[in-house]
């Protein structure tokens, strides 16, 4: 300890002129508020900021000058041998020089900063700026890595050894690797808490710097070249190891594999029955999100950037996927992915699209964004046609009727012009349905759907009146439209898409609740009709005739539609009372009206965007379900056996 102190104190004594200079700077901080033009009520702030700036200058200059001279200069001048020709162990030489040099720099900073901070009464913070009190400390402590950097840089430059080439190469390569890893991490939805991540990065860097200076002194002793070699080996070895570890962690985080997901959610992707869009997290706390397109038949998975749903063409050759740019939340990108090769092309969009569709062969893409429908050829992204959709408070969903014809289907009524939630500010208007002819680059109006004429009963309950709103679900062949009312509109209408003629009506009431419904793949519709006992399913033919009525368990207050699992079976989730979750799932046979409980298996329910697609009944995506361990599984409707897809989270863990 005596020897360590002797070395450390010698380092301070050798540069003791720094401390009086710091004292003079501290006085300057007190003089600046006296300058003419500085408001009297700003004296504390002016003094504090001046002191911090001066302290930082001392920290920056001091750490670079002292760091560069503490060993590097002595090595170059062949005076480090003084320490090594005396009974001083190399670690003590290193530690004494490190401690002495750092103590001097930090002491100089404190001499400048602390008097002003103490007088301000807000020690150690800065008055009037509202800054975190830790910030000045962080700024002052930044002298530590700078000091170490200067030490290493000085030795590297003065040694004139070939290791300098390696240093320069790694100095370029390492940030490049970090950029590539970071870019991929951000692109694919990796997320870390910036505080601990920054602390870890700084910790690793500091540890590498400290270890490198240690190796330089202990291994190199008085030989600058050998010391440089040792410091380079340790520095880059540690940093590369940490980078490799970080890259592995990042890769595991962004691409843990579908099978390792703990929490997951899935939905069918387009009319193809094999591909599902899976979103989940491999972490138990659910943090971080990973998106996959998963082929349930083959097991093939494609990692996707952080986004929402994906659409796969009917032939399964191509997918369209919308996501936010990893580097700008303002930038929306539509990616068209070749599912065989994994290649993708990216189309920049001005806004989040209202709808996207692919032709059955995946060669054309239609997208509606900011009131404009554009059709592009894939993968060239050549624009084939672009036209305005009908102007109205409706969002439009593009649907290819044929490769050359796109149906512009009004999907959802925007209740407010500002797009926010709250009381409706718009009156209901009859939406116009139209078709874009790609070759002619023209839009033809087909019909108007009589939505405004749907009777809205007077509201009896008090509270915010959000008004009526509607979602218009098209049938698979686009010949029919199911109008599903929300808000204060407790109605479902089956319309003829070509003429807008009403084929069937199912109404609810404020007391009984509102009906809801979906189309089946064959064009028939199933509507959950509110009745005094709860709900019943009404099966409607394509011409609106009631084919059958199937009673659901008494007390049912909410119905969610699942998938057509083949052989006339439709999965249906029901909830009783005020529960909004579908707690009990049944396999409803629409032909004979029987209900088969699915036990504790929670099925992936269909929600409105996927209510627009019709995977073939009984195809793999229709068997998607969750079990009680929150695993994503494939459910066999005959045996009720499950095949796990994700790891899930066993109950109670």
């Amino acid at each position, binding site marked *: 300890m005596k020897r360590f102190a002797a070395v450390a104190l010698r380092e301070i004594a050798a540069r003791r002129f720094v401390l009086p200079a710091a004292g003079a700077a501290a006085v300057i901080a007190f003089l600046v508020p006296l300058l003419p033009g500085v408001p009297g009520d700003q004296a504390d702030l002016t003094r504090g900021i001046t002191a911090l700036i001066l302290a930082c200058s001392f920290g920056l200059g001091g750490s670079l000058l002292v760091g560069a001279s503490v060993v590097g200069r002595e090595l170059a001048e062949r005076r480090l041998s003084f320490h090594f*020709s005396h009974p001083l162990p190399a670690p003590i030489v290193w530690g004494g020089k490190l401690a002495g040099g750092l103590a001097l720099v930090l002491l100089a900073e404190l001499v400048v900063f602390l008097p002003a901070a103490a007088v301000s009464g807000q020690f150690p913070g800065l008055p009037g700026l509202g800054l975190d009190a830790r910030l000045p400390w962080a700024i002052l402590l930044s002298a530590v890595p700078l000091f170490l950097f200067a030490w290493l840089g000085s030795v590297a430059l003065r040694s004139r050894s070939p290791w300098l080439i390696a240093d320069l190469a790694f100095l370029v390569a390492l940030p490049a690797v970090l950029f590539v890893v970071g870019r991929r991490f951000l692109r694919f939805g990796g997320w870390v808490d910036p505080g601990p991540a920054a602390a870890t990065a700084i910790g690793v860097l500091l540890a590498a710097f400290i270890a490198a200076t240690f190796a330089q002194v202990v291994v190199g002793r008085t030989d600058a070249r050998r010391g440089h070699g040792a410091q380079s080996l340790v520095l880059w070895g540690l940093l590369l190891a940490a980078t490799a570890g970080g890259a592995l962690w990042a890769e595991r985080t962004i691409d843990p594999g579908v099978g390792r997901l703990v929490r997951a959610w899935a939905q069918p992707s387009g009319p193809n029955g094999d591909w599902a869009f899976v979103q989940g997290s491999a972490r138990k706390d659910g943090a971080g999100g990973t998106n996959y397109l998963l082929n349930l038949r083959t097991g093939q998975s494609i990692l996707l950037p952080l986004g929402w749903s994906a659409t796969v063409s009917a032939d399964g050759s191509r997918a369209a996927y919308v996501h936010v740019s990893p580097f700008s939340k303002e930038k929306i990108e539509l990616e068209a992915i070749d599912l065989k090769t994994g290649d993708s092309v990216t189309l920049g969009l001005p806004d989040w699209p209202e709808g996207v569709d692919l032709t059955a062969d995946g060669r054309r893409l239609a997208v509606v964004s900011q009131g404009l429908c554009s059709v592009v050829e894939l993968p060239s992204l050549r624009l084939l046609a672009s036209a305005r959709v009908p102007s109205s408070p409706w969002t439009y969903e593009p649907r290819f009727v044929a490769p050359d014809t796109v149906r512009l289907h009004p999907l959802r009524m925007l209740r407010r012009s500002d797009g926010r939630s709250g009381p409706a500010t718009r009156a209901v208007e009859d939406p116009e349905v139209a078709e874009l002819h790609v070759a002619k680059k023209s839009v033809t109006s087909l019909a108007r759907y009589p939505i405004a004429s749907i009777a809205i009963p007077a509201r009896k309950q008090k509270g915010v009146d959000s008004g009526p709103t509607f979602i218009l679900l098209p049938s698979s062949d686009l010949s029919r439209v199911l109008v599903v009312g929300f808000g204060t509109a407790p109605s479902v209408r089956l319309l003829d898409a070509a003429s807008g003629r009403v084929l069937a009506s199912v109404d609810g009431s404020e007391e009984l609740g509102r009906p809801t419904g979906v189309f089946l793949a064959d064009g028939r519709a199933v509507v959950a009709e509110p009745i005094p006992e709860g709900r019943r399913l009404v099966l409607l033919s394509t011409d609106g005739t009631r084919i059958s009525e199937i009673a659901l368990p008494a007390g049912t207050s909410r119905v969610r539609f699942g998938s057509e699992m083949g052989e006339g079976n439709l999965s249906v989730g029901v909830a009783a009372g005020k529960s909004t979750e579908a707690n009990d799932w049944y396999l409803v046979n629409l032909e004979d009206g029987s209900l088969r409980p699915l036990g504790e298996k929670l099925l992936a329910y269909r929600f409105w965007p996927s209510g627009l697609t019709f995977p073939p009944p009984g195809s793999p995506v229709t068997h998607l379900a969750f079990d009680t361990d929150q695993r994503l599984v494939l459910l066999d409707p005959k045996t009720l056996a499950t095949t796990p897809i994700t790891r899930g989270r066993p109950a109670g863990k």
Partner: protein
Amino acid sequence: MTDAATTTPAVRVDGLTVRYGRTIALDAVSLDVPTGSVFALLGRNGSGKSSLVRCLLGQQKPEAGRLELLGSEPWGKRSRLMERVGVVPEEPDAPREMTPRQLGAFCAHLYPSWEAKGYDARLSRFGVPPATPFGRLSKGQKGLTQLSLALAASPELLLLDDPTLGLDPVARHAFFDEIVTELADRGTTVILTTHDLAGVERIADRVGILKDGRLLLCEETERLKSRFRSIRYRSEVTEGRTEFGNELDEMDPLRAKVRGWGIESVVAGYSDERFNRFAARDGITDAEASPLSLEEVFLAVAGEEKGAAR
């Protein structure tokens, strides 16, 4: 010198090899330095002297070979060994901003036995101002300050790496006088590299000569000087001559020059018997042998190749 001292060398070097990249600084050097002796390591610039000193000080790790300093391996036990070794480097390396007094105070923390009074007395004797920063001292004062530091720790071994380089004659004289005194007082082993051959001849009882990393010779000074001679003679022998004659072969001639008056040669294998036999040979007249100084021996061994000139 005791029997134990003669049997246990202070330094033992066996096959020591040091390389800097492709350059071989020391090539399988082997030597022993008996305890209590004064060993002068001689060689031209770049011959490998400093590399050997750095190895002895544990500042350079040899590539091959074994090295023992006071019974320990210097690279691994450097710090402990330095408690027993005093060092005066070729270039004064003490911190420039420290005064000799501060240097003494600094070193006092490092050594278990530090003779502060002796240190101050030496500074005074050498006329070194104790309060002047080391960087502002003259070269001679710096060297003498470092010698004072080295001696104040009462070392068992004193390692002097060309310590008189650049010193004026007075400082050089004071330097060697102090070493002689130290030797007389303590029997300290001294290893000395120097170009000041006249100075070292007074005190060295053992000499090693390095050339291009190889140890050409290592033996007692007196023995060395006794086997080197300058031989002058006239020769009437004309038949069976080699390039410069084979009449001296028995005495291992290093070089020979044909002068107008006869032949002048330096031999490394002189003895009275051999010389008498040589002088009695037919055709050899006016033969005379004169002793060489250490400097002349060095020049003969390290200065030129054998038979390079005549």
